[in-house]
């Protein structure tokens, strides 16, 4: 696959990375009390990871009508704010549109990470975040 960016007309090789997170975050009943971070794309020496698409991105958790937040990070630096998911009908799914210049990108040589924060006030529960992203290196 080749993406064409309005800021950079050179050909890119677009790749896919799976988003598949599952964890029982230890919720003690206090908001914003439990987080977990997973690596979506490992660091590439001297390269940025440019995310062009997030697809069929959904989260599932038990019980409450509260939210679970997702942040994307370059290493430990947040690239996005806390994006919230509710548990409507057991799933809340979205996709972004294709963004040839990248929705966001890491610093050179840093991994693309995703931090999941349990903002629910219920007891401990398993949270799943599934989907995939597309990205290129530059």
């Amino acid at each position, binding site marked *: 696959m080749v993406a064409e960016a309005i800021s950079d007309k050179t050909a890119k090789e677009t790749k896919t990375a799976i988003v598949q997170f599952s964890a029982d975050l230890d919720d003690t009943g206090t908001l914003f009390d439990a987080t977990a971070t997973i690596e979506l794309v490992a660091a590439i020496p001297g390269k940025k990871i440019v995310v062009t698409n997030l697809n069929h991105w959904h989260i599932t958790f038990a019980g409450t009508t509260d939210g679970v937040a997702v942040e994307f990070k370059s290493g430990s630096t947040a690239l996005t704010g806390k994006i919230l998911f*509710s548990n409507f009908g057991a799933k809340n799914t979205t996709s972004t549109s294709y963004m040839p210049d990248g929705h966001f990108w890491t610093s050179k040589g840093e991994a693309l990470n995703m931090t999941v924060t349990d903002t629910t006030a219920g007891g401990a529960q398993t949270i799943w975040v599934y989907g995939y992203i597309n990205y290129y290196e530059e």
Partner: protein
Amino acid sequence: MGAGLRDIAPKEVYSAKIDAAAATGDVTVLDFSVLHPNDSSKKIVVINFLYTCTTTNPTAFWSGSSSGTQLTGDMRVIANGWVKGGYNPDGHFKAAVGADLVIERASSVGVGGWINYYLE
């Protein structure tokens, strides 16, 4: 004019996070003088964004501040719902020359996500 249909000259595209806890008042999403101190003759053109809202209270984009020029209507979603503007190389909307880009919150709501833009 933006890029795309009318202007295909290369643009430098920027990404910025949208991140504010629940409260009332303006969120300065893009502080022009901090982000682009040497480009005061240019304007922000928004080409892509996605953010979620913690409550059903509406949000709207403004140029400068919520006493400036309103760029969108009051956009209301369900709690934890999405406000999305897909890739539009010509720009969904643009701020005035040298102006900040602001999200107005007339009632308490938190916002989280990201935005893409260029200067012209």
